[in-house]
């Protein structure tokens, strides 16, 4: 018997615990996915299957991208496609994949003082701007804030002229902005996931929804080991592969709050 199989066997024996002891990954994530409870719902299955500990840091998309550029994350999961593509183009991410979508909605006071009911997004914002009703903006470079700015632009309105008056920039997360909107009877733009799982809506309700302009796409990107040698590439890739797999996509589709599906998986079928 040659020593080589013995050595190989020894290496495998030694190597197995090392393989089993996978390294944790940090996911720099947008708040809507974390605050709605999506991760709590889908991560246990992934962690049980792979033994990879997934640590979620939930911040606005702008901050998440900035943190990932500083190499402080292994995976980026956000919703601002142009910024995500720039992140990859600049060499910080290996590749971007569509993961899932939902939509934005405009919520506001129960009596709809600006009369937004039934309007599409651009018409609603145009009505709002002249109505004297208040609008609470994230004002924090988050994915939702960027989507909101694009909607104002499409409506041909520069809301910054009303800043501090009817246009209130909270500079805070979605939840804090919703609390502020509810507190001052203002309209605001929110992703549907955060809205449905938000526990303090009081009498606010959805007034504008269903416009294709309100589409909200989430993407996922493993941070590149070339830009960031410290990333746990293998574990990050395992996580992304799982998210876009049939199993991961089914887990996302199966996540419901109050009987409502909050995220619709749309990752391209793995080739």
């Amino acid at each position, binding site marked *: 018997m040659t020593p080589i199989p013995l050595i190989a066997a020894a290496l495998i024996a030694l190597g197995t615990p090392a393989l089993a002891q996978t390294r944790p990954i940090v996911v720099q994530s947008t708040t809507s996915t974390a605050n709605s409870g999506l991760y709590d719902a889908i991560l246990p299955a992934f962690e049980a299957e792979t033994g990879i500990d997934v640590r*979620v840091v*939930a911040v606005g998309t702008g901050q998440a991208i900035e943190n990932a550029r*500083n190499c402080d994350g292994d995976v980026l999961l956000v919703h601002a496609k142009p910024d995500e593509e720039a992140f990859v183009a600049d060499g910080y991410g290996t590749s971007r994949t569509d993961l899932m979508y939902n939509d934005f909605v405009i919520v506001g006071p129960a009596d709809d003082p600006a009369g937004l009911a039934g309007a599409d997004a651009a018409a609603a914002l145009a009505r709002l701007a002249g109505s004297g009703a208040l609008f609470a903006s994230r004002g924090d470079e988050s994915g939702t804030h960027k989507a909101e700015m694009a909607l104002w632009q499409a409506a041909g309105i520069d809301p910054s002229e009303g800043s501090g008056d009817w246009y209130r920039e909270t500079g805070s997360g979605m939840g804090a902005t919703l609390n502020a909107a509810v507190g001052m009877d203002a309209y605001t733009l929110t992703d549907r996931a955060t809205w449905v799982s938000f526990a303090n809506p009081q009498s606010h309700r959805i007034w504008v929804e269903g416009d294709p302009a309100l589409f909200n796409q989430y993407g996922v990107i493993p941070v590149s080991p070339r830009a960031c040698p410290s990333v746990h590439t293998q574990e990050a890739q395992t996580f992304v592969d799982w998210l876009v797999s049939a199993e991961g996509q089914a887990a996302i589709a199966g996540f419901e709050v109050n009987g409502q599906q909050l995220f619709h998986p749309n990752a391209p079928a793995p080739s």
Partner: protein
Amino acid sequence: MQDFGSSFALAFRLVLSGDADLIEIVLLSLRVSLSAAALACAIGLPLGALIAVARFRGREALIVVLNALMGLPPVVVGLVVYLQLSRAGPLGFLGLLYTPTAMILAQTILIAPIVAALSRQVLQDMHGEYDEQFRSLALTRGRAVRALLWDARFALVTVALAGFGRAVAEVGAVIIVGGNIDHLTRVMTTAIALETSQGDLSMALALGIVLMVLALGVNAVVQTVQLSAARRSHG
């Protein structure tokens, strides 16, 4: 508001049920903030004592700066520590970002000036009373510092509690360097911020009540120890 009533009931239920997540968060809060208070004392007390007894040029200016640093904004401390510990920062190789260690570090920086500035004042006042005695005994500066720290120990415990109180109550620094990661770096204040952002205001308030009770408990324990020690030393 009905929120207060329901929050008290909720806080009560949370504590009585021994909710595992809550216990984990409470223990991490205590671990981080007590460690930070201990480290801040290790740095701040000798520093405060030294400034209290030493006479040197620029001493008055140093005291003004030290007192001003008591007002360090937690979020700025968090940001500065983040920039150091980030993988892109000078200490990134340590891999400390998003760990309890990073949170202890940030809170230590936040409260060490409080401990130093308050102890400086306490010890300086006492030094004024003892100065003649020290001189007649021809004590070296080192021994004078030690004598002062020992004699002021009860007042200094209150100084340490002020530091702990600031640490356990702040959210700005720990949420940046800790990341509020579930089962890893989530403490009471970041959990309260999270519940608030999810609109669960009664849960946020309930956690706030638990935090207040926790601070009360720490202070009560320290006070009890302090009183019995004082009784022994005077009796």
